[in-house]
């Protein structure tokens, strides 16, 4: 299973290296979203700075949407999804592999967006540890849930639109929790971020489990 996961993750990342989509398209998109928020929330700057954490995670979520969409666009192009099934790979492995690849891409994006936030919204961070752990936990959660609903949507010809609808309400708590935890890390609130981090951990754990179990049936029948 681990072997299969590595194989799939490797394949997805190779495709990314070949096509540079995350780097050349999703990343700029993410930054753009930040800028748009800046437009929308003008005029008062203070507002932006206070909302920095939230906007950061919103941007990450939308980028995650794109990353997942991409991850399955690659598969379902020209029936390659059937290819996955015919490949004889262990579904759990496929799930972990694709989730891992998405997670890697997201981490890169988060680094970028982090800079964006610091510059655009002049937020400054303390609690780097808390922030790091938050990012890791949230990323795993997003990637896992994203991959599950990605394969659900990949079956339908309407995946572009179905995926956001399915995914967003599910990851809503991640946005919320990550935002709060990050606010704590940015010191823009008094109270501790750790309970939120635990929540993120729980979310990630749940969806990793669900994915490992349910991905098989989904891949077969979705």
């Amino acid at each position: 299973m681990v072997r299969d996961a590595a194989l799939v993750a490797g394949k997805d990342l190779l495709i990314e290296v070949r096509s540079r989509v995350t780097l050349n398209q999703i990343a700029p998109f993410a930054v753009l979203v930040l800028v748009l928020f800046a437009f929308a929330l003008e005029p008062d700057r203070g507002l932006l700075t206070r909302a920095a954490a939230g906007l950061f995670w919103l941007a990450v979520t939308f980028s995650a949407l794109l990353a997942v969409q991409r991850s399955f666009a690659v598969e379902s192009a020209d029936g390659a999804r059937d290819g996955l099934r015919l490949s004889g790979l262990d579904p759990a492995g496929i799930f972990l592999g694709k989730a891992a690849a998405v997670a890697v891409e997201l981490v890169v994006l988060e680094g970028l967006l982090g800079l964006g936030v610091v510059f655009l919204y002049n937020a400054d961070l303390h609690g780097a540890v808390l922030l790091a752990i938050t990012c890791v936990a949230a990323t795993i959660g997003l990637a896992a849930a994203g991959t599950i609903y990605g394969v659900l949507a990949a079956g339908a010809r309407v995946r572009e639109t179905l995926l956001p609808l399915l995914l967003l309400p599910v990851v809503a708590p991640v946005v919320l929790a990550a935002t709060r935890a990050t606010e704590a890390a940015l010191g823009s609130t008094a109270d501790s971020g750790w309970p939120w981090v635990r929540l993120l951990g729980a979310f990630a754990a749940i969806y990793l489990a669900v994915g490992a179990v349910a991905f098989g049936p989904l891949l077969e029948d979705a």
Partner: protein
Amino acid sequence: MKIRLLGVAAAASLALTLVLGLRLPPTEEQHQYARLIAIHPAIAWVAYLAFGVMALGSALYLWPATRHRRWDRLAAAGAEVGVVFTALMLATGSIWGRPTWGVWWVWDARLTLSALMLALLLGYVALRRVSVDGERRALVSAIAGLSAVVVIPVNHFAVTWWRTLHQGRSLANISPASHLDGQYIQAMLVGFVAMTLVFAYLLARRFQLEVLADEIDDAGLAAAIEARRREGVPA
């Protein structure tokens, strides 16, 4: 037949609720709107109930021992009726909120959760719409249904802490449970009964509809197979 009786009962109790509700005296701080208590809490309860039904149906379908189309139908029926009641809950709540809080909406944990529930239900229904064939759809939507349910606790904690770790306005300050005399309690309870009956009725009808649809499909299938076999055979 049974269902028709259920319908009658539902209609009757609903009527009673309306009468009781409308005979409620306006309270000083909420005026006429206090009467919403006759239906709103009940609707909210039913909304949760429907979500639960969807979860239950999905779970029972996924469990190999109990796998049967009826559970898929139950989940489907629950979800669709649930959409209606959740929407009603939000609507009545907002209408109530306007006079009580001066706004249509506050980001209270409970409210937010209900909003998310509506989204989850809509997603589930949309997913069911995109695929037609029974077996697969049943399995897939069961999985989708359950994995929507497992986030509810997470959602719950998230929104609760969100509104409590953060000091700020929440229903706590304007607690519903504030001084209710018997008349209100009475109306509220009848409301609960009525809404539950209505829910049961709608659920049963929707379920029945699924059954009929499936029967038509099965009948259709036999015919379709026949037709398919005759293809290309000289007439």
